[in-house]
């Protein structure tokens, strides 16, 4: 049916066919909206019953965000700080958990099943952290059924006495106090690390063992370099994932659909996107030079 066409050409033609549904979506539901959103952020968008109209406004909305908006700067700063604090905790914790789950022990299947549960339940709809006003009401009424939460004051004292700096101590105890939050945001990352750990060839460990390496040494000399590309992947994923539980996202939503200020919301989202891309670029630059690639 297709004469004069080599198999390779035929295959690449079919390749275009296979990719085309995605490509249509990419153009019409991603690229064009992305461009439109940028345009809207520079224009005054007025939505009427029959349609919508734009009139050029220049940098007005960006100025409004930075100079006039009461909460945007603070929330932006907060979300950046949260992100920077969360990334190391989540990446380290997920690597640790993956290493733990990768070992052979009784009940491993059950433990794995439980560790991936937060992937399913990680949604801002559930108030598991017990931080809402309602929870406080309930706690005062019930005499604190769920107690004080998980606290680590003794660990703090212990670390300070053994000569750790106060900065690192408060970071670690802070992470321990937020253990649920960290676990619930590191499900996919554990999965990625686990898949990576399983793809490390056992012969490497065997060779190291014959040479007399302890398991501690082989972790740092084999496991860590082999999964280091995934650290990059996981950092990127953590940043992307943070879009979902960010306070800034709520503000952007509310600005559009409660205050009905579409252009302002578009401008906000572009500032947010810009800042996160800068953070991502810096992180990728910093980490990718340290990453070890096997092949």
């Amino acid at each position: 049916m297709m004469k004069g066409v080599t198999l390779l050409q035929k295959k690449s033609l079919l390749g275009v066919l296979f990719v085309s549904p995605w490509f249509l979506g990419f153009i019409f539901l991603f690229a064009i909206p992305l461009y439109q959103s940028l345009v809207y952020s520079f224009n005054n968008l007025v939505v009427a019953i029959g349609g919508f109209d734009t009139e050029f406004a220049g940098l007005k909305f960006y100025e409004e965000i930075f100079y006039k908006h009461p909460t945007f700067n603070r929330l932006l700063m907060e979300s950046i700080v949260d992100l920077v604090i969360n990334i190391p905790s989540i990446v380290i914790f997920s690597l640790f958990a993956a290493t733990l789950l990768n070992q052979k022990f009784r009940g491993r299947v059950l433990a794995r099943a439980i560790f991936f549960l937060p992937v399913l339940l990680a949604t801002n709809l559930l108030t598991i952290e017990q931080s809402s006003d309602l929870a406080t009401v309930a706690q005062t009424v019930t005499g604190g059924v769920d107690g004080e939460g998980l606290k680590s004051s003794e660990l703090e004292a212990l670390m300070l006495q053994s000569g750790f700096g106060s900065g690192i101590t408060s970071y670690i105890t802070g992470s321990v106090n937020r253990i649920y939050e960290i676990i619930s945001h590191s499900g996919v990352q554990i999965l990625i690390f686990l898949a990576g750990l399983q793809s490390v060839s056992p012969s490497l460990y065997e060779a190291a063992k014959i040479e007399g390496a302890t398991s501690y040494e082989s972790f740092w000399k084999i496991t860590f370099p082999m999964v280091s590309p995934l650290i990059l992947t996981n950092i990127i994923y953590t940043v992307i994932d943070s879009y979902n539980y960010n306070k800034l996202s709520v503000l952007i939503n509310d600005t559009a659909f409660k205050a009905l200020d579409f252009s302002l919301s578009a401008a906000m989202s572009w500032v947010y996107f810009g800042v996160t891309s800068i953070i991502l670029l810096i992180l990728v630059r910093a980490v990718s030079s340290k990453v070890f690639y096997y092949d």
Partner: protein
Amino acid sequence: MSFLRKLLAYAYEVSFLRKLLGGIVLKHAVVRAGATVTRFAQEKQPLIKMQHWAWILVRATLVTGLCFVILYPLFFKISISFKARADMLDPTVLWIPKHFTLENFRFAAETLNYADTFVNSLFISLLTTVLQVISCALAAFGFARLKFRGSGILFALAVFTIVVPSQTLMIPTYLNYRFFDIAGIIGLFTGTNGINLLDSYWPFILQAATGMGIKSGLFIFIFRQFFRGIPKELEEAAYIDGCSVFQTFYRIMLPNAVPAIITVFLFSFVWMWNDNYFVSLLLTRIKVLSTMLPTMWTATQFEDGLYAYMIKNTGELLFIAPIIILYMFVQRYFVESIERTGLVG
């Protein structure tokens, strides 16, 4: 809740003890300097054995501790949902209610309008999941095996789509579905500014079928990595036996990609089910669970804060129950198949 505190102190103690014991054993051997002891140490390796057992202990403590932290809120919710109001105030009731009741469930289901919203949620989630699996697998197969000029760049763009926050696309997406039109064609026929697709399932169908649903870029990535891991020989054998590319795709590649399909299916379903952003953006009349849940308890809040809190927890339990049931069935394949999901290289 001093559990974690104890756990950490314990881990510290064990590692300290390990060193101490190791030191004693070594010193013992040096002082005696007897060949017997050295031989004993070499043969039985008490130090290594001790280390081994200490590590097993630490690991068991850590795993159970972390599992506890994960499961605690779930147990907490389950416990609350079966309690009568009197049990909440009764200090002698901790976990197991004295007045076992299903009243909370009845009331929560009523305020959530559970029968209808559950069906809507299930319909949207299943529909988008199936479409997303198909579209992402197709695109990924194209990227993995049918190379054409520029396919590398397109794949990079596919992954790039998940880096852009959905908020950046929010307003154009909303307006495009509000005044839906393809290059002005529909407008020509109806004479209006396109048709209103809000409050219908069409936006979800369109997004999912074109691989632009929630985190589709990630799914394309997973599928592509997996397809690349399937040996080329398998595919070539199929071609030699006279399979077309399509036949190879659904007879050879898809049956081999079951672990990837399960992973993508589960993620896609769960993220759609949990999604509050798209459904509240695009649906107002059609009610789904994730839009009902945040406000369901507010009606009771002013009369009785405690009761509202109980209802809220019960509602959340009703919300996550289907996912947990699904997970129970899929979990076996999911957990065991990670090895082969090809998530990595």
